[in-house]
């Protein structure tokens, strides 16, 4: 959606108990940076991936349900809730992309004007020629199309953050439900708030359930820290359940086509995998590394498959940003491989255990360099 009228002039400002309302434009005017992506990948041709800016608060365009547009600080939670309903922004609805296939269609609307074709990156791994040659002499090819659906982490303990500012020393303190306080301090200081790291102290005391969903640098952490400095008062935010559903980073969301070449004895000759990985509307802290480095490199599994080729397109859509969740990429690769091996056994009339036995990496071959694992 495009913002027609900003929340800046909102009647919420004069609602009872309201201390301040900030918009993305207010933060940009103070030279607040964007949420950085901290793990980069290169395209097939060696060029860098597309990393469109991820403003802390959406500025003129909202790209997904849960993309925050304003921050309202009030004396009490009920006052904040009431006032938030009076944030009057007006929106023009733009076409939205809910699937990667639609996002890659020629002529699809653009999630970010500066990213043609909504393609974040196009990556590959392995020896395509060796894989093609192996398929040419295969007795059997097993095929699988798999949608590894997105999942919402939904920790029992929603995310929360408290920012504080000491006017005497100029130091900021953030208490946050983070699995990753050191990195958050680094990213927030260097890229978002542009303040020296030694003025930032980050505490992660009671974190609650995480499994990755609390490992990223989230907008709210930067916002409460910055707002505490502006207002010279501590500022606290706690997600409610609906906010957790909408703004915690989901995991997975891969659509994969795979094929496995086998000889007549059920020995694996080659594996070819094509994946579309959803990045959502912005790149979250570690999102780009999950499908290539944490998933494709695991595609050999425990088998001696001599040739593997994996191709990967990472795609922007209008879902919330997708990032690492519980195992991050490794379960995606493992599920794919297990399913594919079962299909091969079934179609060849072989026992599922026996086909595995024939392909296991033998104990005495370890340490073993697979064709997918990075050296």
């Amino acid at each position, binding site marked *: 959606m495009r913002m027609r009228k900003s929340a800046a002039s909102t009647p919420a400002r004069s609602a009872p108990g309201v201390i301040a309302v900030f918009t993305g434009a207010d933060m940009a005017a103070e030279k607040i940076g964007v949420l950085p992506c901290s793990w980069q990948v290169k395209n097939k041709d060696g060029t860098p991936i597309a990393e469109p800016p991820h403003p802390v608060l959406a500025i003129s365009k909202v790209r997904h349900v849960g993309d925050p547009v304003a921050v309202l600080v009030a004396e009490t939670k*009920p006052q904040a809730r009431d006032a938030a309903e009076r944030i009057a922004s007006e929106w023009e609805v733009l076409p939205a992309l809910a699937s990667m296939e639609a996002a890659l269609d020629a002529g699809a609307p653009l999630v970010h004007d500066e990213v043609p074709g909504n393609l974040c990156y196009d990556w590959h791994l392995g020896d395509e020629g060796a894989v093609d040659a192996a398929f040419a002499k295969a007795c059997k090819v097993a095929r699988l199309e798999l949608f590894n659906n997105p999942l919402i982490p939904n920790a*029992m303990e929603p995310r929360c953050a408290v920012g504080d500012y000491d006017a005497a020393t100029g130091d900021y303190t953030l208490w946050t439900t983070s699995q990753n306080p050191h990195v958050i301090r680094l990213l927030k200081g260097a890229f978002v708030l542009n303040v020296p790291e030694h003025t930032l102290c980050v505490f992660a005391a009671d974190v609650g359930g995480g499994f990755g969903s609390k490992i990223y640098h989230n907008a709210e952490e930067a916002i409460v820290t910055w707002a505490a400095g502006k207002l010279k008062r501590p500022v606290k935010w706690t997600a*409610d*359940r*609906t906010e957790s559903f909408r703004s915690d980073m989901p995991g997975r969301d891969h659509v994969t086509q795979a094929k496995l070449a086998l000889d007549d004895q059920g020995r694996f000759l080659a594996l070819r995998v094509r994946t579309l990985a959803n990045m959502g509307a912005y790149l979250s802290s570690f999102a780009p590394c999950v499908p290539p480095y944490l998933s494709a490199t695991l595609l050999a599994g425990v088998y001696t498959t001599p040739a593997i080729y994996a191709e990967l397109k990472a795609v922007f859509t209008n879902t919330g940003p997708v990032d690492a969740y519980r195992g991050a990429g490794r379960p995606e690769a493992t599920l794919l491989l297990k399913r594919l091996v079962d299909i091969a056994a079934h179609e060849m009339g072989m026992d599922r255990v026996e086909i595995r036995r024939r392909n296991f990496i033998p104990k005495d071959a370890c340490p073993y360099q697979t064709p997918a694992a990075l050296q």
Partner: protein
Amino acid sequence: MPKVSLTVNGKPVSVEVENRTLLVEMLREQLRLTGTHVGCDTSQCGACVVHVNGASVKSCTILAVQCEGTEVLTIEGLAAPDGTLHPMQEAFREYHALQCGFCTPGMVMSAIDLVQRNPQGLSDREIREGLEGNLCRCTGYHNIVRAIAAAQVVMHGKASELPRAAE
């Protein structure tokens, strides 16, 4: 702010609430009875079920002021003062009807009301249907159904002891 007077777990209480305060907010945040859980804010999960005048109610879906003069029972009020568990709690323990335990307070409170409303006894299928307002993301429900089936035998006085779970 309105004041609401009611009985919670057998004790009379008077609490100042906002008009919009939900029963679950009053229980958790003002009375600090945090055994009642909030798993959603959309009336779907049932983690928040308590009894109001004996009937199971999603406490996130009723205002505190609507509970004026009522008797509210939460998971904290189920066990006897000497710590003896209610047969439903005992059955959940015996039948391993929980993993993380987040849905459990609501499951137990719903299950007790379900059994009390059905003195003729419930089939497994009826138990499953009766639990449609309670979601569990861990157990897959089988052991919850087994626990309720076992507890109803004790609650209806058909046995003095809970049938033991198979080893």
